[in-house]
C-alpha cells in the first residue's frame, strides 16, 4: 500500500522542483539562523542566493560528525530552544553523542516518513504491531512507535530485553507485525521454534533496521516465521528510522526524497558523483526545522538507483550497503567506534594500550569480546585482583558504549601489534555481502 501517493509517486520533474524549492528554503534558514553554517558558507564565498536549486547542491559545504561535536549540543539548532520538543542521540566516536533535535511539527513529519515505510511493508491500521527497539535516546523505539500510531495501527511498546514477554504477548494479542533489529527477530524465531510456538503466532510482517543485514537473513526470517520482512534505514542525525525502506520488490530502499535529498560522493576526493556511481551516501535535510543538516556525510557506502520501481514509487533507491567509510561498528543495533573503547581503556590502570575488539554473531545475537593486555605490574598471584580488573574494564565499557562486552585479559604481547596503526577490530560477521 502507498501511504502518500501524491508524494511517493510524483514525477521526477515535480519532485526535483519541490526539492529545489525546499533546498533554497533550508539553505536560507541555516544561513540566517545558524552561525556555524553561515561561517562555513562564507568561508566558501557562498551566499544563500548562490543556491538556486538542487543543481547547486555540490557548492555547499559538507557536514560531518566533527561538526556535530564542535557544536554539541545545540550549536546547529536553527530555531529558538523553546521551539524544540525532543532530543535523540546515538554514540559518537569519543565521549559526546551525536544528537538530533525535533520541533513539534517535525515529530509529525518523521512519523509520516515511518508510516510510509510501514505502509510500504503492507502494514495498515488493522495491524497489531510490537515495537522491539529500545525506547529512550535511541531513535528506534519512539521513532517506530510514533510512525505506527500515525498509521493507526495498534502499538505494543515492548522495548527490548524481555523476549519471553514479547512472545507471550505476540500470541495473546494476535500481533501481526513487528519492528526490531533483524538479528533480534532471528533470536525470537529461535525461541519460538524451541517452544514449538511458530504455529501459534499471527505475525505477517517484520520491519527491521538499525543494523545492516543480508538477503540470507531475510530468507531465514521469511521461511522460518512465514512472514514478509522489510529493511528500514535511518540515522539519528538526519531524523531516525524512516529515512528509507524497501518495497515488496526488494530492489533497494526507497528514500523519501521530498524530505531527504540524497547524493553519492567519493569519500576520498569528496567529489559529488553522478547518479548510479558507488560511493558514500550524503543526505541533506529538506524539511527539518530544529537542526537541518546540509550535506551530512553518513559514511555508509552505497549507490543510488533512480529508475521508476515496479511498485509505482519514483523515489530513488539506496542499494545494498557495501560497508562504511569509517570504522564504526553496529553491534546489536548500537553504534560503536573503536576509539570509544580505546578512550575507556585508557582510564583503567593495569592495561596496556593494546586491545582488540572481536565481534561475532552467535545464535543470531551479536557478541562483543574486548581483548585487553594486562600490564606487567597489574598482574598478581591472586585471581580476585585480576577479576576485579576485568570487572572494572567491563563496567567502564558499559558506561562508554552502552553494551555488555565480554572482557578477555591477555598476556602482554598476546595481541598482534601492527606497525604504526594497530588493527583493533576483528569482525567475524558477514554483514556486507
Amino acid at each position, binding site marked *: 500500500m502507498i501511504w502518500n501517493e501524491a508524494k511517493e509517486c510524483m514525477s521526477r520533474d515535480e519532485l526535483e522542483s519541490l526539492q529545489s524549492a525546499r533546498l533554497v528554503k533550508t539553505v536560507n534558514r541555516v544561513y540566517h539562523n545558524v552561525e556555524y553554517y553561515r561561517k562555513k558558507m562564507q568561508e566558501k564565498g557562498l551566499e544563500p542566493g548562490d543556491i538556486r536549486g538542487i543543481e547547486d547542491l555540490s557548492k555547499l559545504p559538507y557536514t560531518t560528525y566533527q561538526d556535530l561535536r564542535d557544536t554539541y549540543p545545540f550549536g546547529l539548532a536553527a530555531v529558538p530552544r523553546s521551539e524544540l520538543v525532543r532530543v535523540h542521540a546515538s554514540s559518537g566516536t569519543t565521549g559526546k553523542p551525536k544528537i538530533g533535535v525535533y520541533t513539534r511539527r517535525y515529530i509529525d513529519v518523521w512519523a509520516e516518513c515511518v508510516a510510509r515505510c510501514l505502509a510500504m511493508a503492507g502494514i495498515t491500521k488493522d495491524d497489531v504491531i510490537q515495537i522491539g527497539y529500545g525506547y529512550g535516546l535511541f531513535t528506534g523505539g519512539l521513532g517506530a512507535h510514533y510512525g505506527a500510531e500515525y498509521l493507526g495501527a495498534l502499538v505494543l511498546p515492548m522495548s527490548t530485553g524481555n523476549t519471553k514477554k514479547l512472545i507471550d504477548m505476540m500470541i495473546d494479542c494476535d500481533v501481526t507485525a513487528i519492528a526490531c533489529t533483524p538479528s533480534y527477530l532471528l533470536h525470537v524465531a529461535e525461541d519460538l521454534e524451541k517452544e514449538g510456538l511458530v504455529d501459534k503466532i499471527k505475525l505477517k510482517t517484520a520491519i527491521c533496521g538499525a543494523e545492516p543485514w543480508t538477503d540470507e537473513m531475510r530468507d531465514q526470517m521469511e521461511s522460518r516465521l512465514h512472514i514478509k520482512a522489510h529493511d528500514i534505514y535511518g540515522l539519528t542525525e538526519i531524523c531516525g528510522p524512516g529515512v528509507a525502506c524497501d518495497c515488496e520488490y526488494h530492489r533497494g530502499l526507497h528514500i523519501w526524497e521530498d524530505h531527504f535529498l540524497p547524493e553519492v560522493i567519493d569519500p576520498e576526493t569528496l567529489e559529488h558523483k553522478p547518479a548510479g556511481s558507488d560511493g558514500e551516501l550524503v543526505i541533506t535535510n529538506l524539511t527539518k526545522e530544529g537542526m537541518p543538516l546540509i550535506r551530512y556525510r553518513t559514511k555508509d557506502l552505497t549507490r543510488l538507483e533512480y529508475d521508476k520501481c515496479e511498485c509505482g514509487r519514483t523515489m530513488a533507491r539506496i542499494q545494498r550497503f557495501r560497508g562504511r567509510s569509517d570504522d564504526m561498528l553496529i553491534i546489536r543495533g548500537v553504534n560503536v567506534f573503536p576509539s570509544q573503547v580505546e578512550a575507556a581503556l585508557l582510564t583503567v590502570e593495569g592495561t596496556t594500550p593494546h586491545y582488540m575488539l572481536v565481534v561475532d554473531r552467535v545464535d543470531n545475537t551479536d557478541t562483543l569480546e574486548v581483548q585487553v593486555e594486562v600490564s*606487567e605490574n597489574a*598482574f598478581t*598471584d591472586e*585471581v*580476585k585482583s*585480576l*577479576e576485579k580488573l576485568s570487572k572494572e574494564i567491563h563496567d567502564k565499557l558499559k558506561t562508554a558504549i552502552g553494551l555488555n562486552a565480554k572482557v578477555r*585479559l591477555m598476556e602482554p604481547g598476546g595481541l598482534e601489534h601492527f606497525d604504526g596503526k594497530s588493527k583493533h577490530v576483528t569482525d567475524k560477521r558477514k554483514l556486507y555481502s
Partner: protein
Amino acid sequence: MFIKQLSVFLENKEGRLDDVLGVLADNGINLLSTSIADTTEFGVLRLITKEADKAKDILKNAGFTARVDDVIAVVVPDAVGSLAKVMKDIHRAGINVSYIYGLSIDGPGAPIAIKTDDNEKASAVLEESGVKMLSTEEL
C-alpha cells in the same frame, strides 16, 4: 619463614601451559610443586621451585608475565584436625587466607602452601603455636 612461589599469567589458550613448562624444562628449572587457579577467561599458574627468581627472569625473557611472591609453607601432622587448627590460629589473629594448596613434597606430614593478606603476622602466629614451617632451602 617463607618459601618463594612463582606465578605465571596464562591466557585461556590452547597449549599455553605446555609453553610455560617447556621453557622452564629447556632451561633446567626443576619444579617441586604446581597448582593452577583458573577462571573461564584466564589462569594463574603457581609453581614452587628452588630457583624462583631465575625462573621468573627466564619466563619474562620468553615473553610471559610472571612474578615471585612469598607464601607460607606449613607441615601439618598426618592427623585429623591438624590443618583445621592451623586455620583457626590464622583466623583468630584476624588474618584472611587468600588461597591454600597442598605441596607435592614428600613428608613426614602434609606440606601445605598458604597465602594470607598478612604473611608476616601469620608466620609469627604460627611460629608461636609451634607449627612447623619450611624455608625454600628446606624444600
